[in-house]
């Protein structure tokens, strides 16, 4: 339903997203997970034809977002991150306006608007102007306008942000109820939320896809695996062998040697065990010189930690 190939977007010098590729099947619910500035909104804006990619290709429902934008826009419902609505319109008037633009038959508009307002729990707000609504109710209006033409593809940018816990539960169950026929992409900072709603999660960080899998598979990877980088001066083969013999080490990789005669190794420990302190002990026993011992660079877990920290702020 959605095909994205090598999508890249740069803002002047700044990076937006970098070489993103993925596919979404019809009826699938997929979640973008990533910290602030990761590129979630950028990707969604390209898919909804709001702005063009710098390079790469994307198509929705078989139509290219760049070449055939009008056809793409007929197929999608979009809830932007900031929920930009016309504040000077009354809720039903606004929804009727959107229904008209999205080409609903005139006769159906009234009943459809009523139906949508009921579905997202807005019926008692019918006399209010959009500008008078609280953030959570605006979010519902935003959701209603996205859903009004019953689109095949739904793109929701942080649909539950700013809602109170009860509303979050309601909106989540609403989204879950929408799945099946519809293809949905949503973004979030909240790991449990995406794992609850989505069949597949795409983890984005710094404009790149870091992982893409089902929630279960990602969770099983999440079980903390400690990994360190060690810089040691000593005979390479002996060091490799020595490191492997440390209790609890899962694997050792040789990473290269520097001019000073030191070699770098990555040591990964088994699930749930961090034996980093054993490496200096081994080095001093063997009279090797240990120059550096650092946690290994940005793995999936680190990204998760970034995300999870974010989440704790929410709760």
């Amino acid at each position, binding site marked *: 339903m959605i095909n994205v190939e090598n999508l890249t977007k740069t803002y002047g010098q700044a990076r937006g997203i970098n070489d993103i590729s993925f596919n979404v099947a019809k009826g699938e619910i997929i979640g973008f997970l990533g910290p602030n500035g990761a590129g979630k909104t950028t990707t969604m*804006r390209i898919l*909804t*034809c*709001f*702005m*063009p*990619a*710098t*390079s790469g290709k994307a198509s929705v429902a078989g139509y290219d977002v*760049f070449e055939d*934008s*009008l056809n793409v*826009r*007929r197929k*999608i419902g*979009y809830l*932007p991150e*900031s929920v*930009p*609505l*016309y*504040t*000077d*319109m009354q809720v039903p008037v606004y929804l009727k*306006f*959107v229904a*008209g*633009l*999205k*080409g609903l038959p005139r006769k159906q508009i009234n009943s459809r608007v009523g139906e949508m307002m009921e579905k997202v729990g807005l019926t008692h707000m019918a006399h209010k102007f959009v500008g008078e609504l609280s953030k959570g109710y605006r979010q519902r209006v935003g959701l209603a*306008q996205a859903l009004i033409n019953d689109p095949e593809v739904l793109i929701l940018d942080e649909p539950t942000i700013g809602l109170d816990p009860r509303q979050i539960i309601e909106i989540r169950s609403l989204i879950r109820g929408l799945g099946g026929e519809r293809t949905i992409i949503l973004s979030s900072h909240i790991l449990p939320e995406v794992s609850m709603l989505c069949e597949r999660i795409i983890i984005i960080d710094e404009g790149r896809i870091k992982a893409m899998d089902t929630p279960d598979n990602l969770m099983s990877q999440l079980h903390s695996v400690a990994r360190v980088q060690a810089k040691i001066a000593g005979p390479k083969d002996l060091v490799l062998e020595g490191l492997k013999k440390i209790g609890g080490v899962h694997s050792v990789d040789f990473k290269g040697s520097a001019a000073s005669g030191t070699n770098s190794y990555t040591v990964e420990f088994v699930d749930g065990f961090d034996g980093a302190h054993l490496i200096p002990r081994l080095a001093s026993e063997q009279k090797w010189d240990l120059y550096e011992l650092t946690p290994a660079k940005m793995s999936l877990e680190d990204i998760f930690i970034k995300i999870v920290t974010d989440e704790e702020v929410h709760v």
Partner: protein
Amino acid sequence: MRNFWCLFVKEFRSYFNSPIAFVVITIFTVLSGYYFYNIFAGFSTLSFQAQTNPMLVKQYGALNVTESVIRPLIGTLSGVMLILLPMLTMRSFSEEKKTGTIELLLTYPVTDMEAIMGKFAGCMGIFAIMLALTFPSIILVEVFGDPEWGVIIAGYAGLFLMGAAFISLGIFMSTLTENQVVAAVLTFSCLLVFYIISYSAGLAGETIGRVLEYLSFNYHIRTFVKGVIDSSDLSYYLLFIIFFVFLSNRSLESKRWRG
């Protein structure tokens, strides 16, 4: 066509959800009414005196209500439009950009041209109300005098086209910036240039002088207030409108170009 209609209705209504339409319409009506009152009262006094003092008629020529009331009125209205219409057009796209609503508008299945024409028509609707509210003055002239209806009709047609031209330029300016004040100032300055460009026609050489004259709004309204709708004036305004609608379309479209 349906999209255009939805956008037009929404645009027209939203002018009344903020004070802007009331303010602009009221100022326009009050200013034009005040001006009308002054020239009309002056004219009545003059014609009253002329009845007793035939020398005055010799001095001023035949007293003619079309000449001394309708033409100056139309000239003044065009000046007031110059100041007030930029205040109507400034919000059209600038506000959408500022509040972010343009993100939804441009992701609906609406062409850029439909969006522009919807805004254009919404503004034209308010402008039509402004013009219509000056009709009581005209009716007063009809009751007390004997104006030439040809001049009135042609004059209002000229004003209508001129207003449409102002609005098309104003909408273009609002596609360029998210700041409404900047959009209004740009519109006003550009309109002023087109308004006064013919002043320097006398100084420039003959060909350039002609071109400058042709470009100016004043030059074209002159034939209208003679009661003549000339195809060259008509095409001037229409080309002006089409040109700026086209530029607005380009300006919106450019957001979708790869870059």
